[in-house]
């Protein structure tokens, strides 16, 4: 979001700079440009009419909706800018960090060593507090007892991570019933 906000800010500042240059040129009648000779387009007239309505306090419902929307967008961008970044590495304890890739590797090894799991994909997010947020998608054959596999899988992943000393913030497991011909391994 920071990059998006930065782009918006650059565009706004560039626009303001251009407007400023034009204002100086037209205000001081430089290079034969006169303020009086500026043609007012219909869009320009409607904008000046809108601003007039705002200053007089006689806005239409549509005007109010537009202003509220602008305020909401501004608030969202402000919150996105102020919100601290998600950390890149998983915090373990005081002064120790581990990359998300290592956690992903450990989770996948545990998952793929679990009976009836034919393959898996893992997504790990670092939290500001110690621990990782883990989303594990595991492939199983159709018709398997998914509840039993899920609890077994959860236990194995947690045991493996505990053995490595990696704190788990949250672990979400989703089982996908898949065709074994399309998975990493056909038999487990």
């Amino acid at each position, binding site marked *: 979001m920071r990059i998006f906000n930065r782009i918006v800010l650059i565009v706004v500042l560039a626009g303001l700079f251009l407007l400023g240059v034009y204002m100086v040129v037209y205000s001081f009648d430089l290079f034969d440009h006169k303020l009086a000779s500026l043609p007012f387009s219909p869009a320009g007239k409607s904008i000046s009419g809108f601003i007039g309505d705002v200053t007089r306090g006689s806005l239409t419902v549509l005007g109010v909706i537009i202003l509220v929307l602008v305020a909401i967008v501004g608030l969202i961008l402000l919150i996105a800018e102020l919100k601290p970044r998600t950390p*890149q590495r998983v915090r373990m304890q005081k*002064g*120790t960090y*581990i*990359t998300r890739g*290592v956690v992903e590797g450990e989770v996948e090894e545990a998952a793929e060593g679990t009976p009836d799991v034919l393959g898996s994909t893992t997504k790990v997010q670092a939290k500001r507090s110690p621990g990782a947020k883990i989303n594990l998608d595991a492939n199983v054959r159709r018709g398997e007892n998914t509840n039993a596999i899920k609890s077994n899988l959860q236990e194995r992943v947690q045991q493996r991570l505990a*053995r*490595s000393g*990696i704190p788990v913030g949250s672990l979400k497991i989703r089982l996908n019933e898949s065709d074994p011909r399309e998975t990493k391994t056909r038999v487990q």
Partner: protein
Amino acid sequence: MTNGLLQIARAASEAALATEGVYSMGSGRFVEAATYEGGDKVTGVVVKPDELEIHVVARYPLPKPIPEISKNIMERVAPHAGDRKTLVVVEDLEVGADENL
């Protein structure tokens, strides 16, 4: 300061490599983790004014949990760190050459 960032980095790197469970020094994921001085560099250690960052690749299978390895690294590195806070970053796990995995 002339006593050098590189000297600190080298000492810290040697201390970290001598710790059980450390396979090699890491090199950073998105940005190279290294200390530079006078055209020379030490990879895996970033010496900052108030922080010493140690990047390691841990040996697999782990001889002990990662937090313990990290604690041992911190203890070994502490004499070279001065007043700096030590951070340990485990970048990867590598199967040791003597392991048949």
